[in-house]
């Protein structure tokens, strides 16, 4: 491996990492919002909307992100919906992630035994108070491992952004290999930068998971 090449490539990879993170966190935030709203809709069994959420989940869970991105980026402009590559990345990631987040939040909400709701009613709490003070904290803490797995999954999925010509890590590596044929150095940096991005998430995630494990009282 050539040290000079490595050093000269680092700034390019750093920029790519920043772009990946920027789109990544916006997309993840977007997917959280979709997840919470969607889970609330299925939890409270809102008519019509519940069916729409169901169709949305099935559609986006059963197709690859690459195909979704191609559809948003190349197909939608043909019917007049034009968005930039970056917005497309955020939208695609958010929509894919949203479908997974809804499922995670929903299974968290479902896992709270009915006796919790009944007990808080009998203590005189209202429906909203019950949801906010009793159900939600427990549901979220149960969902945390699933949510973290989703976050890592989504950050990994950002690697397909290179196909819609966003200059992310994958794009940079492919571009540099194509131009200078320093394959080993490029692949090495690619792995290192993905580790820089995902290892902290994985480690901090494990710590948070341990810290938040207060819901399963009595197991």
């Amino acid at each position, binding site marked *: 491996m050539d040290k000079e090449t490595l050093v000269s490539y680092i700034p390019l990879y750093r920029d790519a990492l920043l772009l990946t993170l920027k789109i990544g966190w916006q997309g993840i935030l977007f997917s959280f919002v979709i997840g919470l709203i969607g889970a609330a809709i299925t939890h409270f069994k809102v008519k019509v909307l519940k069916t729409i959420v169901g169709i949305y989940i*099935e*559609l986006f*869970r*059963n*197709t*690859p992100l*690459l*195909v*979704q991105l*191609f*559809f948003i980026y*190349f*197909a*939608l*402009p*043909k*019917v007049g919906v034009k968005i930039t590559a970056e917005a497309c990345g955020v939208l695609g990631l958010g929509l894919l992630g949203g479908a997974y987040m809804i499922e995670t939040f929903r299974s968290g909400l479902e896992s709270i035994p009915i006796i919790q709701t009944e007990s808080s009613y009998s203590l005189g709490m209202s429906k909203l108070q019950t949801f906010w003070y009793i159900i939600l904290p427990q549901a979220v803490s149960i969902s945390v491992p699933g949510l973290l797995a989703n976050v*890592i999954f989504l950050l*990994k*999925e*950002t*690697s*397909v952004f*290179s*196909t819609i010509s966003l200059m992310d890590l*994958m794009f940079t*590596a*492919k571009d540099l*290999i194509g131009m200078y044929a320093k*394959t*080993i150095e490029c*692949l090495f940096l*690619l*792995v290192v930068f*993905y*580790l820089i991005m*995902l*290892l902290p998430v*994985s480690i901090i995630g494990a710590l948070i998971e341990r810290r938040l494990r207060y819901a399963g009282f009595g197991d």
Partner: protein
Amino acid sequence: MLDLGIDVLFKGTNFLRLLQGLWVSIEISLISVVISILLGMIVGVLMTMNNPILHVALKVYLEIVRIMPQMVLLFIVYFGTTRVFGLDLSAEASAIIVFCFWGTAEMGDLVRGSIKSISKVQFESAYALGMDKVQTYWYVISPQTFRRLVPLSINLITRMIKTTSLVMMIGIVEVLKVSQQIIEANRKISPNAAFGVFAVVFLLYFMVCWPISRLSNYLEKRWV
């Protein structure tokens, strides 16, 4: 009326080519799933053993798979091995290697999870009835693990199929590549082809994965 460009698909053998492209993805994923399930069972059983060295090694393996995007692994195997070892792997072979590497870890984790989820009482009761270790595993534990595993491994198939869309990046001509070719070839006659073709690809993927994931859900509700 707005031209959606779906007519392109009915010209010549275009639709057939698209389906052939889809079959390439499905073929790669089926081969990888079968190998992953077999290897995954071994890895899963190894993980339940209390060997510290084995435990650490498998932990590292799982963490690598969990953190590295499959696309990076594909690049390493396809471009890296050629460079470092002078191996000339075909794109299909590298795709299968990568998906097996990934699938084995996923499957191994599922197997470990389902063996761990069997309560200790089952083991103790079997021993109390005078069964030996092999009998206990064969007659009591494995049928229960199997029931839990079937829906999960069916689910792995859909994830495998979805991930194989990435092989386009290392030059395998699968459904997305074919659709790009069709769109390029008809750019002049049908400028809106991108919409029709990508919409159809979207639906094709959905039609393949949706029944499989329904089956997995159904079995999970019935058996677990």
